[in-house]
């Protein structure tokens, strides 16, 4: 089977603009492949280059070495088959929620009437019917995330790249959003790369968890298939014995890397 998305031996070295001698290799020789319809989480300690890897997959960042293949085709420029959910605020603050959701369709030249219908439909699906005319600053953090989700999913991307999308939310809102994400995902199984530093979140959502080593020169050090049954409820599944077993196994492998990352940050 051809992978929906394949990162092959990716290395990313950043060079300081002021001093060419100063370089930082965030990711070295990292490979990751995602099957069609698969939900893969990438976990790792802070500062281990998770976002770098995702930006490479999105085509926003050209790797120093290695290649990206989308359904077997080498990627050039922006990955048009992918939708990207950013960690920080990415909505256009000068557009209302409705206009933000419709933005991608507008950029693609969809007729305004059709775009408006779809945007309203998606606002309803993420539970924001009636909030379409609000500007981002008038919405709560959770609502803004929903708008972002609708903004990305309305384009029906085959690959969904998510960079700690719920990190800024409180625990309750976060679990609600995770369940909503699973529900939306199960409707039409996209390939998902979900970046997080939260192991519990990773296990409860994914089919497979990839652990990255601490940076610099971080690379995958372990892969774990998650055989928990679906459909899942993220708040309940955390209590099941199998979940705890998997968690212990992955945490055991991750712990050293987390401590390493922590020590590096303290320097």
């Amino acid at each position: 089977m051809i992978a929906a998305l394949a990162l092959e031996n990716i290395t990313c070295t950043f060079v300081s603009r002021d001093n060419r001698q100063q370089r930082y290799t965030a990711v070295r020789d990292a490979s990751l492949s995602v099957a069609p319809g698969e939900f893969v989480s990438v976990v790792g300690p802070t500062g281990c280059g998770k976002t770098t890897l995702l930006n490479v997959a999105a085509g926003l960042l050209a790797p120093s070495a290695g290649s990206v293949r989308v359904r077997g085709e080498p990627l050039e420029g922006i990955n048009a088959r992918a939708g990207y959910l950013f960690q920080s605020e990415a909505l256009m603050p000068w557009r209302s929620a409705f206009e933000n959701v419709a933005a991608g369709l507008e950029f693609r030249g969809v007729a305004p009437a059709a775009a408006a219908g779809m945007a309203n439909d998606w606002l309803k699906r993420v539970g924001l019917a009636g909030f379409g005319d609000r500007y981002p600053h008038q919405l709560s953090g959770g609502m803004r995330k929903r708008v972002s989700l609708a903004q990305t999913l309305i384009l029906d991307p085959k690959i969904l790249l998510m960079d700690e999308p719920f990190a800024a939310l409180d625990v309750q809102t976060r679990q609600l959003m995770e369940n909503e994400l699973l529900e939306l995902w199960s409707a039409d199984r996209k390939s998902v790369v979900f970046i997080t530093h939260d192991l519990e979140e990773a296990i409860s959502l994914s089919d497979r968890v990839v652990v990255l080593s601490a940076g610099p020169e971080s690379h995958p050090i372990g892969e774990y298939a998650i055989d928990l049954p679906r459909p899942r409820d993220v708040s309940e599944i955390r209590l099941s014995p199998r979940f705890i077993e998997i968690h212990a196994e992955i945490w055991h492998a991750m712990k050293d890397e987390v401590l390493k990352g922590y020590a590096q940050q303290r320097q």
Partner: protein
Amino acid sequence: MRSSGNNLALRVWQALLLGAILAFWHVGTSPTLLPPLYFDNPDKAAFFFGEPLTVLSRIWNWFYGGEIYRHLYVTLVETILAFAVGTLSGLAIGIWLARAPLASAILDPYIKGLNAMPRLILAPIFFVWFGLGIASKVAIGVTLVFFIVFFNVYQGVREVSPVVLDNARMLGASPRQLLRHVYLPSAMSWVFASLHNSVGLAFVGAVVGEYLGSSEGVGYLILQAEGTFDINTVFAGIVVLTAFALVLDWMVTLAEERLMVWQPRSGETERL
């Protein structure tokens, strides 16, 4: 609502302050109301500072007799042209340079130099190039307005949130669409901040240009009056110009409120 009550009180105080200033002016310059404190001749205060009632009657005569309209028209045309040309060119070149790092690196010292230069010294050159008519005043105003708008747009475009930009690219925006839907709206808040300054400077360009050489315009009227030591007319000209500068500034505010509805304002709760 509470805030409107506050507003009314504020307006009353503002009007009272204006009244107090005018009263002080009137009493201080009248030859009969106060004994001469400083000047040996009781008419001297009025000679130097004018008299508010005479200033008002001068303004009234200007508008009632129709003498002012031709001059006001010329000055306003100069100001608005300078404002429009300076703003649009500042906007265009600011956006271009902010997105062309090489060109901006090459031009950087020249832009800094031009900005540091007291640009009114260009007036004689503009008079040679464009003559004594409207064009030379517009040129002076443009040099003043351009740099303010330019620097703000340049800053505004460079401070576009990289995440918003990446998001728009992932949503499929072409470079043109990025310009139209991301760079421009993001720069607009900076542009509007600069437009309030620019209105005033467009007036400065027009009036100073008229002082230096012209045959019509409010600046010309003021210069003529000064030549005959008619201080009341000078003050009348100042009052008229200030009033129209305020009107233009108010129009900028109106446009800002219409275009910038998306901006968060502090204390947006409603008091019930």
